[in-house]
C-alpha cells in the first residue's frame, strides 16, 4: 500500500478524477453487502492478498502500532465465519445499517489496480441509532474474473475513541 497518510490530509494536490462507472458500481455493491449483513457474498469480493484495515491513527505503521482491525484474507474469512455462526452476540441480531459513499476520488490507477478514496457516512441502528463516518480507501483490482477487492482502509473520524463496539462490517 503506497497510500496511507496522504488520504486524510491535504497532501493530494488539486481535483482528482472520479472512478470509472464499473469501479464506482463495485464500491456501491461492496457497501450494500456490508450494510445488509450479507457476509459470505461480501467475503467473495476479496482477493487473496486482501487487507481490511481500520487504523487508530492515519499515520500508524501497522508493524509497530495496534489497529482496531488489521485483517488479512484468512482473518477476513474468520471474521465472516464468526458472524455466520449466528452467535456473534455483538451482531445478534445484526445492526440495521445504511451508508452513503461519496466524494469518490481516484488516488492512483494503473492497468491492474485503481485506488479510490471516498467519504462515507454510516447510520447504524441497534438498540439506538449511531453514526459512523470517515474516509475509506479502496484498492480495486481488475482480473479476468472481474473486479476484486484488494484493500480497504477505513479512517474513522472517531478513531481517536472511545469507540463503540465495531463488530459489523465497517
Amino acid at each position, binding site marked *: 500500500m503506497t497510500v496511507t497518510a496522504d488520504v486524510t490530509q491535504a497532501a493530494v494536490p488539486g481535483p482528482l478524477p472520479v472512478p470509472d462507472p464499473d469501479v464506482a458500481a463495485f464500491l456501491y455493491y461492496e457497501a450494500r453487502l456490508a450494510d445488509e449483513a450479507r457476509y459470505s457474498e461480501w467475503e467473495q469480493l476479496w482477493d487473496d492478498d486482501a487487507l481490511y484495515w481500520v487504523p487508530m491513527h492515519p499515520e500508524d505503521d501497522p508493524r509497530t*502500532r*495496534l489497529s482496531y482491525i488489521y485483517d488479512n484474507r484468512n482473518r477476513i474469512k474468520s471474521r465472516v465465519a464468526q458472524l455466520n455462526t*449466528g452467535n456473534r452476540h*455483538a451482531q445478534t441480531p445484526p445492526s440495521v445499517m445504511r451508508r452513503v459513499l461519496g466524494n469518490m476520488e481516484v488516488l492512483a490507477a494503473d492497468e491492474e489496480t485503481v485506488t479510490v478514496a471516498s467519504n462515507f457516512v454510516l447510520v447504524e441502528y441497534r438498540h439506538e441509532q449511531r453514526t459512523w463516518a470517515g474516509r475509506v480507501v479502496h484498492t480495486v483490482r481488475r482480473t479476468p474474473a472481474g473486479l476484486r477487492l484488494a484493500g480497504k482502509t477505513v479512517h474513522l473520524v472517531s478513531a481517536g*475513541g*472511545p469507540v463503540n*463496539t*465495531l463488530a459489523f462490517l465497517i
Partner: protein
Amino acid sequence: MTTTETDRPAVEPPTPDAFDVASVVQDHRVHGSVYTSPEIFQRELDTIFRTGWVYVAHESEIAESGDYLTRRIGSEPVVVVHSKDGQIRVLLNRCSHRANRLCNADAGNANSFRCPYHGWTFSNDGSLTAVPMRDGYGTEFQKVRSQLGMAEAPRVDSYGGFVFASLAPEGISLAEHLGGAAKAIDRVLDLSPTGKIELRAGWMKHLHHANWKMVVENNVDGYHALFTHASVYDAIRPAKVSHIPAKVDVVVRDIGSGHSEIDYSAEYRKLDEEFVWYGRIPRAKLPDYVAALEDRHGPEKAHDALVVGPSHTLIWPNLFLAEMNVMYVEPIAPDETVAYTTAVLVPGQDKLNQRTLRRSEGAMGPAGFLIADDGEIGMRNQAGLAAHDPEWLELSRGVETDVIDETGVVNSDKSAETPQRGFYRQWASVVGQEIRA
C-alpha cells in the same frame, strides 16, 4: 428532658456516612445496586479511586524526559509525566488559577505546561514558573505563590514498569498492595529477553455500556467463555485447552486484596508444550526470540517460561494482565466504562511483536473476536439489572470446593466464581470504609 440517657436505645446519631456495605455485599452474592446506583458509584470514586493504588501508566510510554500522558484516576484527570529531574509524577490536570485543564493531548513531550486561558506556566515537575503581569497581584498572593503548583498525587510507585498512583498521602505501600499479584507481572516479564516489556503500540479505547466492575470481573471469569465465545470456538479454532473442568488442571485464584486470576500454568506444564498460549506456534518460527530468551534464562527456564506463558490476572482495581495484552478501565458512569487495551511488546523482538499485534487485534478491542462480545454481554447485563427481581446476583459457584493455600484461595474448577468473591470481599472492605469528610 424527662428520660435519662440510659433509657434511650443505644443508637448512634445518623451521620452523612451511614452506608452499610453489608446491605449490598454478602458472602456469595452482590446486590444489583452496586452496578446501577449513582450514590454507590460516587462512593467507589471516593474510596477505591481516592484512597488506594490505581494503575496509571507504563514507564515505557514516558521513557524520555518530558514525555507525558493524560489519564484519569477515577474521575480525576491527571498528567503522568517524566519530569526533568527524572522522577515520574502524577499531576492533577488543572491550572491552579481558574481550573482550566492544562494538558489536552493524549500524550506529548514538554518541559512546561502553559495554561491557554491566562498564561500561567508550570514546569513539568508541577511547580508554577510564570504568572503573566504578576504586578497585578498583591503581596498576599506573592506569599502563597510558591504553593500554587499543580497538585500532585502524593504517592507514585512502580513495579516492573507498571506505574501506580494513590491520591491518599498515607496507606499501604505498593508492594504491600500488590502482594502475590506481583508474581503475575514477573510472569510477563519472564517472557522478555531483557526482562522488560513495552506498552508503546497505542491503546484501543473501547466504550462499554456497562458498569466498570462488570468489565473487570468478567476478565477473570472462567465460566463464560464456552457460551459468550462459542462463536469463536465453533467458527475459527477450538479453545486452547478444554473447558471441562475435570479434564484440565486450570485453576482460578483469589490472590487477596482484590487481585485474582485464571491460571493455566499447571495445565501447560502437564502438556509440557511451548506456546500453547500463543496459537501453538512451533519455536522454529521465532528462532531469534527463543535464542535471546535462552541467553537470559538458560534453556531450562526459558523452556518453562515459554510453556507457562503470560498471566491472566486482574490487579485491583483497574488493571488486567490479559496474557500478551494489557487492559485497564476507566469508570465513566454507573453504566459506562472505557476499556483501554494494548499489546505487550518485547523490546528488540520485531517478529514476535508483529505477531502479537495481530493476535491482539484479533481478540481484543471494539472489533475483537472476543471482547466485542464481552462488551455486548456486559451491556445486556446492565440492561437486565433494570429488572429488580431477583435483587441479588449469585457468586456462589465453587464456594464449597475453594481451598486456601499459600497463593490465596484456589479452586481447581476454572468455572468457579472464586475470583469474583475475592473481588467483592475487597470491594466491601474498601467501599465500606468510613469516608472522612
